[in-house]
């Protein structure tokens, strides 16, 4: 097994761990705002690590394709997180449970 392949598998395992942590956060966090943190950040980083790991085992064209997909997913994740947070904020029951600063 070459060093590149070992690094690739390490990155894939790390990416998988971040996906797992994001899913655990989705189940464990107490409110929808905190759950959005888990899904957005951990999954974006997890996907980035998966893309990096897979790129080491593929051609430059496939790597470019995966990197572009990651950028699109990151952009859509950030925007949809904001939209869902705004929607949750407009629901009175969710916002009332937390104190305004």
């Amino acid at each position, binding site marked *: 097994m070459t060093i590149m392949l070992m690094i690739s598998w390490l990155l894939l395992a790390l990416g998988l761990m971040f996906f797992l942590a994001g899913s655990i956060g989705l189940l464990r966090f107490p409110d929808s705002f905190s759950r959005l943190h888990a899904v*957005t950040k951990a999954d974006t980083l997890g996907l980035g690590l998966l893309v990096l790991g897979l790129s080491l085992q593929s051609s430059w064209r496939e790597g470019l394709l995966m990197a572009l997909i990651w950028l699109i997913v990151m952009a859509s994740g950030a925007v949809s997180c904001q939209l869902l947070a705004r929607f949750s904020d407009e629901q009175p029951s969710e916002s009332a449970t937390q104190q305004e600063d």
Partner: protein
Amino acid sequence: MTITLWLFLRRSLWFGLVAAACWAVLTANSGWGFFTLLLPLLLLWQWHYPLPMPALRWRYLPACLLLFGRQLLLGGFDVAVRALGWRPLDSSNFCHYQSQLTSPASRLLLASLISLLPGTCTISLQPDGMLRLHVLDQTANWQQEIAALEWQLARLFGQSGSGEQP
């Protein structure tokens, strides 16, 4: 009118080139018939709802990307640690942050990027630049992290009035 049309055409050319490059990569250089139908619709949408983009100063892009990459890594790690219960999640709250950026496009970009920074999530952006946020740990120094990214964006977009380097 002529200047507006010229600006629109110039922006459309760049937009078309970037969109075509993305299309070529994502579709493995196929489906151009659908792209030629889709592009005029996208340009029409841009004509009706224009979002003025400030000029980029490319020399500041690497520093901005480096900072964002580092914060993305820290943000993912922070939320993973909290999800696994190794760090408490008992001081989350709503907060506000006044953005000093002047152009609407850069404010929108900042609002979107904040959701990927450690412990912060944008809820809404007011027209005056006030951001309503949800923070996982209100005792953390999240203001400084946002200010650092904002400063990088201000440099990237060549905007003054965004204060000193945090």
